[in-house]
């Protein structure tokens, strides 16, 4: 498991999540890029195995190749040298709703066992304990992206039996309806990447532990999860996490540690 003190060749939790997420990206995938770790994961993939990764930002930049790490989702460096800069209406209608986005990234304050995500409120909506930022583009990304990658640190507070509010639909919603029954076009969350492990979803829409990062154990994962997490019969070996990528992240992609 990662540590927050930088040891050469030993990835931190954030670095592991970025590396593991990069592994999910294939060359030429069309990715709807969020700021922060998703952006780092994309840049890492571009610098390694997916040089032709196609990045689209909700701010309107299509085919961006930012020459600096964007400090916001609408950084001027996303515009310069993009293939196209268009309106947000086009981004949401012509790209996302049209089904052109292969991969979306989301995170959240809460995720439940069906992959539903909450970025709206902790507590009741009318009288929240914490007022979170809200959906932004999350709901429509969860609806339309053909594959959805979730990146979240795993804690009992964030991996919960039931979300206080479903901002973005996962695989099975209150009342038990599936995505298919609700007519949701995208596949929903395909992979949840945490600081300890990777979860995927079974036929019944419930999350299953399928892979541990170096240093994590089934017991440490279960201790960090707010529900009785299913575990795959056979866990896969850890993937995508390696020392050379750590160096790349630290020295080239985010030397100022804006997001790491």
């Amino acid at each position: 498991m990662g540590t927050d003190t930088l040891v050469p060749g030993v990835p931190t939790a954030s670095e592991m999540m970025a590396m593991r997420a990069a592994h999910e990206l294939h060359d030429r995938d069309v990715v709807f890029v969020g700021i922060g770790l998703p952006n780092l994961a994309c840049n890492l993939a571009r610098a390694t195995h997916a040089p032709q990764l196609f990045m689209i930002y909700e701010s309107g930049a299509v085919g961006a190749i930012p020459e600096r790490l964007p400090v916001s989702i609408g950084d001027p460096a996303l515009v310069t040298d993009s293939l196209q800069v268009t309106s947000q209406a086009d981004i949401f209608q012509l790209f996302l709703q049209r089904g052109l986005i292969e991969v979306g990234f989301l995170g959240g304050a809460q995720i439940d066992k069906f992959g539903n995500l909450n970025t709206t409120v902790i507590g009741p909506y009318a009288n929240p304990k914490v007022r979170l930022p809200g959906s932004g583009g999350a709901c429509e990304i969860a609806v339309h992206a053909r594959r959805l990658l979730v990146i979240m640190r795993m804690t009992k507070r964030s991996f919960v039996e039931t979300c206080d509010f479903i901002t973005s639909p996962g695989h099975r919603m209150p009342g038990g309806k599936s995505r298919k029954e609700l007519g949701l076009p995208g596949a929903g969350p395909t992979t949840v990447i945490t600081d300890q492990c990777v979860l995927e979803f079974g036929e019944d829409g419930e999350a299953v532990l399928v892979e541990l990062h170096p240093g994590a154990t089934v017991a440490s994962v279960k201790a960090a999860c707010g529900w009785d997490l299913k575990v795959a019969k056979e866990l896969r070996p850890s993937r995508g996490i390696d020392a050379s990528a750590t160096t790349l992240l630290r020295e080239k992609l985010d030397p100022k540690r804006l997001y790491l």
Partner: protein
Amino acid sequence: MSKLVSMKDAIAASVHDGDSIVIDGFTHLICFAAAHEIIRQKRKNLTAIRLTPDLVYDQLIEAGCVSKLIFSWAGNPGVGGLHAMRRRTEGAGLGQLTLEEYSHFGLLSRFLAGSAGLPFWPLDNYAGSSIPGANANIKSVTCPYTGRQIATVPALRPDVAVIHCQRADDEGNAQVWGLYGSQKEVAFAAKRVIVVAEEIVPTSVIRSDPNRTLVPGLIATHVVCEPWGCHPSFVQGHYDRDNDFYVEWENVSRDPATYAKWLDEYVYGVKDRAEYMQKLGAGLMERLRKKPRMSEGVDYGY
């Protein structure tokens, strides 16, 4: 017919207590200068509408101008929360600010309907989400061809839109490059449009490249020339985002006392944008000023 006025006069004429207002721009082209003038003119009970309220609306909220916020993502990206907003919507402050909440696509769709003169806009969204349960404005229609339920939002026709652009003529023909945000949709949806430009140019400049015009002067009510009008946001081809400002804002805004002090010094304490920039200092302007990167022209001949 020139519509060129000062920001002070534009706000005085166009923004009234109780109005609904959109200061648009998405990270790019957010006209803080307009918000600061609204604060100085002490407008009350505004309905403030933006996908991302950002610091610009948080300041309006802290200054007591806003009674209702219509939005889709409220935070200081990568930094923290919007503290004026949170103080009025959580715990003891609950109910001091009314929230009406969408996703980006949903709120954008309200602008699309308003701009297109339709009473509603359809979008394939929200199935399985709690958002419609929290917002009675989100409804649905049955597609007459497929029988599918498609979500709808109602048209939004704000009283005022503030549109910032790189250049405009004095009739308000506004040209923009870089990120468009939803400025076109917001402008066509609004009843009154204040066009704010970094630079006022002769109409011949506009006419020499008509495909760059995002908002026609036809729908502009007032035109304001306000260089650096977007700081700490940015204007492509003019100045970069002041990211340090966004990062430091967390410390300024977390405590109402430091927040009040900042407003006193940088908003109430200056008479206009020029004085604000002077206060920030030439060093900052030098640091943020663009390094030129000119595109080539194209041939409009025939």
